[in-house]
C-alpha cells in the first residue's frame, strides 16, 4: 500500500480511550516479551472496564495473568518482577484499592533505585481507573493521584484523550522507573483520533488544548476535557480562555503554565481530587512563588472536589466535583470581577 494511503487511514481512524489503552498494551507486548499484564479479572473477563479485552486470547495466560484479590500481593510481585528485568503492567481494578498496595509503591518501588545507588530499578507501570461519575460511591470513586505526586521516585500521569492514553502508556512502559497512570472511568468510552503505529507521548509535557488571552485554565484527565468545553462556551461569551491539559502531574510542566499565566494574567486550576491539599494548591503555590507573580491581575482560583467522601446519590455525586458549568462561572467571574 502506498504510504500516502496509510497516512490517510491513520488520519481518520477513531478509537475509544479503552481501545487505545488496549492497543498500546498489545503493541508493547508484541514488541517486547518482557511486558506482561497483571491484575484482578484482566484475563478471561477482559478487565472490570473491558480494557484488556481479548489480550488473554492473543498472548495467553502466562502474559495476561489473573491474580488473587490482593493488591499488596500484586504490587509486591510486580516490584519483584521489575527488579529482575521484567516489564510488568498492573491494573488496580479501582484506583481506590491502591491504598492496600501503598507499602510496595511508596516504600519499595519509589525508593529502590535511590537506595541501591542505581544498581536496581523498578520499570513497572500501574494503571488505575479512577474518578467519580459512575454511581460507585465513596470507596470506588476517588481521585487519589495527588498522594503519589507527593512521592519522589514515582511518576504520575493523567491522559485525557485516547491519543494520549496510548502514547503515554507506551512511554510509561519504556520508562525505567515506576509510573502510575490514572485513567478516568468516564473517559473510557470517549473517542478520538489514534494513529495505528506505536508512537510515544513524552512524559512531563503539558498540551495547550486551546489558546486564549484572558484566563488560563489548567486541568488534567477529565477536567481538561471539561475545561475545553467550558472554554468553548466562554468564547461565545466574549472570554478567551487558554486551556492547558497537564497530562502529567509528576513531573509537572511548570514552564507551560507559567508562560500562559504571564500572558493571560489569570489562573484557574481545576481538578477532581479533593480541593484541600491537592494538585491545585501545588500549582497555585508554584505560580505565586515564581517571577510570574508580578503578572497576576487577580487571585489564583482553585476549583477542586468537595471536602467530603463522594456521595452515592447521583445529584450529590455531580455536585461534589467541578462540572463544566462551575468552570464557566468561575472563569467568567475571574475575568469580569476579579474573583471567583
Amino acid at each position, binding site marked *: 500500500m502506498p504510504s500516502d494511503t496509510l497516512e490517510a487511514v491513520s488520519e481518520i481512524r477513531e478509537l475509544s480511550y479503552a481501545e487505545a489503552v488496549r492497543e498500546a498494551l498489545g503493541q508493547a507486548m508484541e514488541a517486547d516479551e518482557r511486558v506482561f499484564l497483571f491484575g484482578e479479572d484482566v484475563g478471561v473477563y477482559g478487565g472490570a472496564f473491558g480494557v484488556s479485552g481479548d489480550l488473554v486470547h492473543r498472548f495467553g495466560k502466562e502474559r495476561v495473568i489473573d491474580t488473587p484479590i490482593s493488591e499488596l500481593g500484586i504490587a509486591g510481585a510486580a516490584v519483584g518482577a521489575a527488579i529482575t528485568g521484567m516489564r510488568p503492567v498492573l491494573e488496580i481494578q479501582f484506583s481506590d484499592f491502591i491504598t492496600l498496595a501503598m507499602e510496595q509503591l511508596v516504600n519499595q518501588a519509589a525508593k529502590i533505585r535511590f537506595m541501591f545507588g542505581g544498581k536496581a530499578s523498578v520499570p513497572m507501570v500501574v494503571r488505575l481507573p479512577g474518578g467519580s461519575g459512575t454511581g460507585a460511591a465513596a470507596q470506588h470513586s476517588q481521585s487519589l493521584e495527588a498522594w503519589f505526586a507527593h512521592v519522589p521516585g514515582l511518576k504520575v500521569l493523567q491522559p485525557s484523550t485516547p491519543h494520549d492514553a496510548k502514547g503515554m502508556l507506551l512511554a510509561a512502559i519504556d520508562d525505567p522507573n515506576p509510573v502510575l497512570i490514572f485513567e478516568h472511568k468516564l473517559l473510557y468510552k470517549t473517542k478520538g483520533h489514534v494513529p495505528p503505529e506505536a508512537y510515544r507521548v513524552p512524559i512531563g509535557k503539558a498540551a495547550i488544548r486551546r489558546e486564549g488571552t484572558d484566563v488560563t485554565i489548567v486541568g488534567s484527565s477529565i477536567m481538561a476535557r471539561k475545561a475545553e468545553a467550558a472554554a468553548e462556551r466562554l468564547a461565545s461569551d466574549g472570554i*478567551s480562555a487558554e486551556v492547558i491539559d497537564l497530562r502529567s502531574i509528576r513531573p509537572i510542566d511548570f514552564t507551560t503554565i507559567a508562560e500562559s499565566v504571564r500572558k493571560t494574567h489569570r489562573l484557574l486550576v481545576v481538578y477532581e481530587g479533593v480541593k484541600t491539599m491537592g494538585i491545585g494548591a501545588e500549582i497555585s503555590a508554584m505560580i505565586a512563588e515564581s517571577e510570574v507573580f*508580578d503578572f*497576576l491581575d487577580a487571585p489564583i482560583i482553585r476549583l477542586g472536589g468537595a471536602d467530603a467522601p463522594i456521595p452515592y446519590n447521583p445529584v450529590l455525586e455531580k455536585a461534589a466535583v467541578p462540572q463544566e458549568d462551575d468552570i464557566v462561572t468561575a472563569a467568567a467571574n475571574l475575568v469580569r470581577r476579579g474573583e471567583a
Partner: protein
Amino acid sequence: MPIEVILPKVDMDMETGTIEAWHVKEGDRVRQGDTIFEIGTNKAVMEVEAPASGAIRNIKAETGVPISVGTPVAWIYLDGEAATTPSEPAAAAATVAAATSLSQAEATAAPVIAAAPASSGLRATPLARRLARQNSLDLKTLIGTGPRGRIGEADVTAALILRSDPQDRVSKDVPSGSVASTSILRDAANTAPQDEGSGKRDCRQPEGRLQPFSAIRRIVANRLSESMRTAPHFYLTSEIEMSAARDLLGRLARRHERIGAPKPSLTVLIARVAARILRDHPVINASVEGEATRFHERIDIGIAMERDGDLVVPVLRDAGAMDMPAMTREFARLREGMAKRTLTPAELGGGTFTISNLGMYGVDAFTAIINPPQGAILAVGRTVDKPVGRNGEIVLRPMANFTLSSDHRIVDGVAAARFMADLREALENPEVLL
C-alpha cells in the same frame, strides 16, 4: 493587622444587604465562628459569623440601613494589637464623590478603600503594582474597580492613558475575535511579545479598519451600556426662553472683567443655576446604590466634554457652594487641566448630576444617557430666536431646549417635572434665585 468584617454576599444576585441586628457591641470579645450580626436580604435573614477571634472595634454599620456588599462594617483586633481607632475615613464623605465615573465600574466597590483602617494598606494586584512601578504612577491616586476596591491592570491602564499624549495611542490591527489590549499596555507591562497577530488570522478579510477600544473607550462603553440596560430612562423636554439668562450673562461678563475672573459661559451659568435649584430637589441629586437611593449632601456637577475623541466628565466639586466667579475659575481650571492632562481620575468623575451642552454645535435638542450611578442628566440644546406667543402676539425670543433624562427607579415623573419647572423659572427670571 485587624481583620476586616465585611457585609458578605449571601445570595447570588445580592448587591446590598441590611444588618437586622448586631449580636455584639463595641469592644466585645468574640471567638471565630460566633454570630456577630444578622443580615437581611430580600429573601431571608442569615447569621454572620466572626471570621477571627479578638475584640470587635469600630462598628460602622447601623441596623436597618441598606449597605453595599463588601463594605467593611467592623474590625476584629487580634490579641496584642493596639486597639486604636483606625484612621477614621476622613475621606468617607469624599469617597462617594471620588467614586469616579471613569474608574469606578461598580458603584459599590470604591467607597471601601478609604473606609479601611490605614494599616490594611492599598489593595492592588501584583500586575497593577508592577505597571505602576514601571510608569512611576502612585497607586494611591487611583480608585480600584475590583472587589473591595482592588486596583487591577485595567485601572492602571486607564490612568496611564489619561496621562499620556494622544500620539502614544497607536491603534493596532487585530484579527477579529482576538481580545486586544492597547499598545500602551503592552509597552508598559513589558510583557513577552505575544502572537496575537499571528496564527489564526481570519481568512475572510473584513472591510475597513478595526480599532480596538482604548481603555477609556472600554470604560465608557461598559458604563453607558450598563446604564441603558439597567436604568429605565425617561425624558422630559422644556423649551425655555433665554432672554434673561443672556442679559445676565452679559452683565456677569462685565463684572468678571472688573474682578479679573474669566468670562462666564452659558454652560457655567446653567451649572450654577442647576446647582442652586438641586438643593430643593434632593431626589434629582441622588444615585442608585443596589436597591437603595443615595441622597447626596453635596452637589457635584459633572460637565460632559470631549477630548481627543474620548468622552470625559470633569466635575465641579461642591458646586452648590460656589458663586459665579468661583465656578467660572474652577471650570477654566478643569478645562485647562484636561487639555494638559494634569487632572487626576478623581477630578474626572464622581459627580452627583451631569450637564451635557451640545448647543455650540447647533444641536436643537437631544436626549443623554445617564452617567451611572447618578439619577439624572440634563441635555442642553442651542439657543435660537424663535417665534413665540407673548401677550397675544407673535414675537421672536431666544429659546433653548432642555431635556432631562431620569432614572425611573429613583426619580418619578412629577419629581422630574418639578425640577424642570424650577429650572425654567430660574432661567427665565434669575431673580428668583436671590
